[in-house]
């Protein structure tokens, strides 16, 4: 298992109430923390920097969905023209 439990690594941690503020993670009590000190839902405890709205360009998303679009386009053309039109007994009337 990973050597360093990350709950106290939240260097951005500031004592936060339970309001929907988005700064540091709550300090979970000992017995709720499992073997590697990970509390479900505490993805933000690994935050190392804050990215605001204006300086975030989801370039990775663009790459992923471009790949998805290419795959869908190619598969559609293959399914329609090779698998379907290339098939037998196509209904024509």
């Amino acid at each position: 298992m990973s050597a360093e439990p990350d709950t106290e690594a939240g260097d951005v941690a500031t004592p936060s109430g339970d309001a929907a503020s988005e700064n540091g993670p709550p300090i979970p009590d000992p017995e709720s923390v499992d073997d590697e000190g990970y509390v479900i839902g505490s993805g933000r405890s690994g935050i190392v920097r804050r990215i605001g709205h204006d300086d975030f360009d989801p370039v990775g998303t663009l790459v992923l969905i471009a790949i998805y679009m290419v795959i869908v386009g190619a598969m559609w053309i293959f399914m329609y023209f090779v698998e379907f039109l290339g098939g037998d007994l196509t209904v024509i009337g």
Partner: protein
Amino acid sequence: MATFVDKFPDEAKVVQASFAVAFIALGIGALFGLIQALHRTNVLRVIDSVDYYTLLTAHGVLLALVFTIFFLVGLFTWAVTRSFGRALPDIRLTWAWFGLMTTGTVLATVAIVAGLFPQIPMSADVLYTFYAPLQAHPIFYIGLAMFIIGTWMAGADWFLAYREWRGENPDSRIPLQAFMVLTTMIMWYVSTLGVAVSVVFFLIPWSLGLIETVNPLLTRTLFWYFGHPVVYFWLMPAYLLWYTVLPKLAGGRLFSDPLARVVFVLFVLLSTPVGIHHQYVDPGIAEGFKFIAMTNTMFLLLPSLLTAFTVVASVEHGARQRGGEGYLSWLGALPWRDPAFAGMALAGLMFAAGGFSGMINAGMNINYLVHNTLWVPGHFHMTVGTAVALTMMAGTYWLLPQLTGKAVYSRPIGLLQVIMWFIGMVFMSNAMHRAGLFGVPRRTAEPQYQNFDFVAAVGSVGEIRMQIAFGSLLLFLSVVLFLFNVAATWADDRVDTPVDDTIPEPLSPSSGAPLVLDNLALWTGIAVLLVVLAYTLPLASIVNDAGLLGGSPTFPVTVSLEWVVDVTVGALGNLSLDSLAGVAPADAVADLVREVRR
């Protein structure tokens, strides 16, 4: 640190009760799914093929209706209470609709399972689509009607909560989660109209014998008027979790609140006037109506494609905030050991694949290739079976601690479970798609025929059967692990901070969204208009073709075993007789069937 159960104890009880019913249904449904998969692949047949259809009906109803919709009402009760930040108007009304829904579910399930015992003169082997003229016991239809009326009351409960909240906050924007709940319920009211008319005006009186005949195409079209929006009804809870919870789990913030609202409004508008794409190869419906349904369906891809962008962007934001770099290597910086995150991410990934096979189904004439073949279950086991079900299971790991104040029993088992589900589904669904392409039918107990053999394009038919059986085994084990983890969590004792349940503000807040988006009445009006445009003419042409009550007498499925045996024997007997004596076999069999049924 106070979590949901501390602030809203009553509501937390209702949500827990809803989840309990959902998970019981999930357990039974998954067990039947395993028996079915092993049965149809001829790997292990423990039941009689006649009972396969009883299990299939139960599998469809319990998983696709009961598990998904009970999880939905639980999740929506949590979302409405949490986002309005106030208790529900009247907890008795909440328990009332929960009671009605549960009673309806029990009635329907009893009617279905009674089909396994021939001595009980009741059965509902009509599958979850209950196409007339196949007729189930009236209890089945009454149970379903009560279940749907219960969901209507739940919607009313949430709209009352909205009215009370609006009273105190006259000019603030509807909180995002509440907006999603309300728009989903609008879609639900518009779409359940079809099945309500079909069940209340036709099927219940018909099954009670009050009316003699039924127009099969009419009730079938009315079912599919409801049949497609119901798949979006299951999908919206998954979208609610993907939009408002997944970004937080990834350590990021929702990319755009306004876009989420636009997507949900598009679903209200477009999800109902498309039902005819389930009837592309039905006679009695003009090609023009099918083309309109296809165009609407294709534009219905838009909200899902927008969701793909927004959700992946939000997850990327989390990854980059956690130090992720590069075009794609940020994927490694995500909290993969959190089962809530990993489950939803894998569900989203599989939804992309399921989306593609849905595009094929939606293509009007390419549907000839795959209609009613195993390709279709391949498709929906990836969409409702994984995108919805796996997201619901993953969401449970994050929700249950808030509802009970207890930490999840074992995070590693949770992670193993979601991954096992993903792998099992890859095997089963890939094999189902390939089998569907060379013609293996769906909804069939023994897809092994005497007159012909299936020819597999890639790999052998036997190998595809093993792949389906192996995949279904992994899926069943995954559900067992899930139910064990949930039960163990329930049995645990409370801890102070079971979960990190805060939800950060979106990157671009709701104030950026045009105010018209919150005008629910406007969208309801437009949705009703689109439905009237899409459905008046087809329904009119069906009714004046074969009449409101058609001409199909009843075909009850309360079928005894002996009847089936002698019909099959009669048919086979004639096969051999035919080659010898050249007697016109068709009439002999027809007489046999007719006089047996009298």
